[in-house]
């Protein structure tokens, strides 16, 4: 597709993103697998951008993984979401920001349901009152955390120490961007850039100096599929879908993959290891895999944060080749240390996926 065409589509999908005073809700998947990403997001928001981001310890899961694996009824999820809104209302906030894409999709779905079927909103208010005694106002603005980093991408670039440029050749890095399905496939108008050519990660990559790779399976799902991953017997579904993407992006020689959904980077990272074990297939330079980053991790790297403070040591695919290309220094001896240098040993080296 010609760039002018994409820009026209992007103009049709502009969303309002509040600029301050956010009520923040966390992601189950992110906290389990890439917890430091949420730490980095809050650090950037509070310390770099001086924004007011409030978190209430009383908030819970939105129940999204349970809902999308169909063990949790819609009425239940709708009321759990109503409770999150009640906590926001009680704290005096109106701008709701979610770390999770599954949650973002569900908040959008519930808001649309309440808009088109006002009786469902009445029902949620009744259930919430009955169960907790709480009441709530609707948020004025609901965004995903990646929307906010997109919004402030120029400010981050302005404060940044690094760019997505190979520090030896001066050439832009080649980046695959992968958007979580529930960010825009259900409600394109709730996203930055729509469902076919979402701009939220493209905007960051371009602003920070990289080139975006357009490859055939760019919009294909990572393969999470909820129950398809949760049950061991179904995991071939998840693996096969990620594999389809790796094969499709392979000829374009990506330097790394950037994601905005909590689940996708875990699958795209772990399935590269699994494929190396199952099929002896490795992607990326010299069998080292293609590093997969969250947008929070990348933002932190651009700002000059230490890669191990950003949490890159818990990736199964080694990130060092990417750090070397950008010219980001790191201490390999500190990679697996605990807080204050406590020795935690090291993970075993996988037999096939190569490590530096």
């Amino acid at each position: 597709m010609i760039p002018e065409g994409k820009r026209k589509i992007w103009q049709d999908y502009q969303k309002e993103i509040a600029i301050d005073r956010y009520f923040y809700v966390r992601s189950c998947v992110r906290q389990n697998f890439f917890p430091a990403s949420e730490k980095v997001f809050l650090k950037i928001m509070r310390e770099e951008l001086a924004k007011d981001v409030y978190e209430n310890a009383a908030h819970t899961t939105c129940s999204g993984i349970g809902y999308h694996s169909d063990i949790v009824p819609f009425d239940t999820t709708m009321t759990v979401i109503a409770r999150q809104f009640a906590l926001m209302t009680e704290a005096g906030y109106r701008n709701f920001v979610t770390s999770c894409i599954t949650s973002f999709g569900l908040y959008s779905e519930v808001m649309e349901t309440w808009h088109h079927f006002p009786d469902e909103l009445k029902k949620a208010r009744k259930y919430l009152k009955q169960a907790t005694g709480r009441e709530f106002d609707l948020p004025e603005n609901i965004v995903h955390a990646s929307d906010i980093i997109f919004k402030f991408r120029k400010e981050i670039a302005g404060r940044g120490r690094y760019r997505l440029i190979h520090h030896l050749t001066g050439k832009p890095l080649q980046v695959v961007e992968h958007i979580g399905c529930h960010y825009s496939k259900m409600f394109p108008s709730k996203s930055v850039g729509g469902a076919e050519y979402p701009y939220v990660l493209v905007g960051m990559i371009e602003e920070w100096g990289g080139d975006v790779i357009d490859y055939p399976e760019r919009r294909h799902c990572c393969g999470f599929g909820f129950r398809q991953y949760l049950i061991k017997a179904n995991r071939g579904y998840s693996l096969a879908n990620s594999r389809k993407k790796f094969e499709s992006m392979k000829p374009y020689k990506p330097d790394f993959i950037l994601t905005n959904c909590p689940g996708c980077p875990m699958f795209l990272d772990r399935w590269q290891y699994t494929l190396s074990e199952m099929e002896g297939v490795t992607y990326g330079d010299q069998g080292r895999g293609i590093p997969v980053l969250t947008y929070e991790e990348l933002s932190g790297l651009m700002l000059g944060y230490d890669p191990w403070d950003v949490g890159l040591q818990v990736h199964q695919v080694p990130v060092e080749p990417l750090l070397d290309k950008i010219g980001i220094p790191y201490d390999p001896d500190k990679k697996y240390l605990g807080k204050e240098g406590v020795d935690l040993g090291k993970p075993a080296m996988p037999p096939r996926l190569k490590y530096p």
Partner: protein
Amino acid sequence: MGKLYDLLTRDIRFVEGLKACLNCGTCTAICPAAEFYDYQPRQILEILQGKEDGSIEELLRGDMIWYCGECMSCVTRCPRGNAPGLLITALRSLSQELGYFVESEKGRQQLAIKRTVGEWILEYGYCLFPSNIRPELHPEQGPVWQWEIEHLPDVMERLGANYRKTGPGILRKIPDEDLAELHRIFEVTGGLARYRKIEDFSRQKAREMNLELDDGLESEYIRHIYTTCDPKHTATR
């Protein structure tokens, strides 16, 4: 209109998801599940538009409705504004309400999801909790995850988590009074009733299949539903 179709129309997601399907197959072309399983969302829409109880019951008792990954890729592309993925959520709900889910291999898996994610939601306030993502059940997580699990509190502290402690933060201990509110929401809205149905119908099925089923994750029935995969699901590709 059949009785089952009538029950489906009481689900708001069914009302939202089914407008008028012209059976063009665009949903099937874009569907990740259709590439992996012997599955066509188009076929499901065709059956639903037929409104015939026998065919709908077959759907509710079969494997087909459990193949979808709910990625919702079909929603973007449908030229008529249908949402096959949303219809799947309504079908799966009804299948569980009526106990038909235990009649298929894929449907029976719901008990394993209820006993993991379902219980973790109420126990921790999170859908997932790292100490429960055991490497032996998740070999694909690799050696780095194995190392994380072996040093979980220390790794979480290094990464900035507030692991199992009070106050806000990553993987904090959600206060008991908030977990109690979550539990009451599940009680009031039918969440616990859904859990009970999954348990009750599964216990009945386990007896029929002569497989032992206790309250945990180690019994024969759980192991069976967690690992069994008949090649028929993908056999035609």
